[in-house]
């Protein structure tokens, strides 16, 4: 039961983009793991700005 609620919470966070920054950090760590002078990951604020701007270019809402 508890696991189920946890899973639903995970899905809600994922759908709403609440966990977007955490996923970005994971992606960043994996992608740059082998590089010597890997760039610092973006701050939460800077990342969120990019993420939101990207989301709202193009058609993403309908009638």
């Amino acid at each position, binding site marked *: 039961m508890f696991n189920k609620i946890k899973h639903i919470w995970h899905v809600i966070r994922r*759908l*709403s*983009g*609440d966990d977007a920054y955490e996923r970005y950090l994971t*992606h960043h760590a994996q992608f740059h793991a082998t590089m010597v002078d890997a760039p610092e990951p973006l701050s*939460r604020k800077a990342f969120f700005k990019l993420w939101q701007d990207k989301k*709202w*270019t193009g058609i993403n*809402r*309908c009638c």
Partner: protein
Amino acid sequence: MPKFLKSVAWFAVAMLGAYALSGIALNRGESINAIWMVTAAVCIYAIAYRFYASWIAAKVLTVDETRATPAERLDNGRDFVPTNKWIVFGHHFAAISGPGPLIGPTLAAQFGYLPGTLWILIGVVLGGAVQDMVTLFFSTRRNGRSLGQMARDEIGSIGGTAALIGTFMIMIILIAVLGLVVVNAMKHSPWATSTIAATIPIAMIVGLYMRHIRPGRVLEASAIGVALLLLSVLAGGWIDHSATLRVLFDHEGLPLAYAIILYGFAAAVLPVWLLLAPRDYLSTFMKLGTIFLLAIAIVVLQPEIHMPAVTQFIDGTGPIFGGKLFPFVFITIACGAVSGFHALIASGTTPKLITNERDIRMIGYGGMLLESFVAMMAMIAATVLEPGVFFAINSPAGVVGQTAVEAVATINSWGFPVTVEQMEQLAKDMGESSLFARTGGAPSLAVGMASIFASAFGKSLLALWYHFAIMFEALFILTTLDAGTRVGRFMLQDILGNFNQKLGETSYMPSVILTSGLVVAGWGYFLYIGVIDPNGGVNILWPLFGIANQMLAAIALCVATSIIVKSGKARYAWVTGLPLTWLVVITSTAAYEKIFSDDIRVGFFAAANHLSAQLLSGVLSVEKAAVAPRLIFNQHLDAYLTMFFVFVLWIVVIDMINISRRHLQGKKVLASSEEPYVKTALE
């Protein structure tokens, strides 16, 4: 489950669906329970999804589970990301479901509950869901290319341009009609106006919170926003009861229309994080919550449908909009049955997230089925009302008469009992001054929802439920208005960028202001005309929107049909060819009637000539004579616009037929733009 048991179970579903459907279709005389409509819908969706959609996926599209999708091949962690299918389904559904499926069925209920219900069910199974799924599939095979690009690649540049122009025009008309719906819901309603106005600062608070106070905490911010929205519904009630405050929010239609136009411009120019993005979160949460609540309430309460199966208005004399059952029920209900707009979502954003081709059936076909279910619930909410009440709310004053006594007399003469006292009591219960001639569908849907909610969750709160429903509708209507204006602006900047590079830059402020202004002026014009039109405006704008939306659906199906033929599966071309043919027939017939009909409530030219004659002979009142020239001009404009839509549609259809014929004759045609096969490395 053993195969035999499975077959038995599916047979039972089929039988139950057939039983429920025959129950609602053959029922005459006594009223029918809404639960039968829900049962019929769910069984039909299940059968269609399990058998028809699977068959299309396997035979027509030949979905290949071993083939790498663009999300896998081009994974960049940004737009191309392999994503869990439930997450993609959620995103896709949030994107396709707007206010359309709530409005169309409400208006089409003037024909009775049966025609609209049958069209929603048949239309989605054979048309809308097929269009969404095949478009999603073909775009996935083409690295997520947009409908316009696919039309250019597969049919030719004319098809591509047609899709682009079609999209832009739909946007303009859609926003105008949605604006009109909100204006009609706010007219002389301080409660609704103050609540809807409050959604703007609430969205901004949410935007600031997730941008600056706690960056990226989307759920926290949304929870605060939803709480504030519910509070604003309560606060609206207090304002309505305060003699000094209520006058601030008590307005005629025209000032409210100007306010919406001004708001639309501000929303298009302001940064997205401040208004558009937070409003979208709130409206998505509200929408999912309310639809879910409505579904539960209908199942728990099992309300009786009071509207007859078929009304006398199938002969074209209906008060809400003029025109016969054929073709106008098919034009009025676009979203929920077939919506061309979805092809823009199904090509572009969604395909870039799909992990495996086998998810396409669930996301494309399944997503549209859910949207159709929303339309069914809107139909139920409209038809549980007493027909007399339904027509009193939705009929414009220009048709039934200016005063309550006149309106009631007209509606009674149609055989639908309703009294002035009944309407006054209803308005009082809902916390409104009057519910006569509140056209556009939102107030009647809100009354229907409020009655259902109040019966299921507490009768004393009718007025609160009513204004909650109005707030919920207005919230995502305004989201569509914001997002649509922005998309229109991008498209216009894209076009202008061909002539002047600077104008094409999306961050160049003079260009932003110019193009936003042009888009807002476009829909603002139609909104203005809709407000000054004594017949309510919805009766003109909604069919125009329907024709445009069905035209876009036909273009998407043309692209799909030509791809199916070119891939050597001409024997299956009927899968998209059948809905395409139907759409071409209904849009062409509807357009023909809108242009050439002698009925002044159907034909644009007939209406314009009638009004001109009235103006010349001096029978119009001073007020009506003052706006008549503008209405006449608008009727002409709408007629030419309709001609243009049909012209564009036929060009694309002829192009598609030519390409298919040449291919079948073995002549050279544009090569398929499908990306080559790459084996997937994912599990």
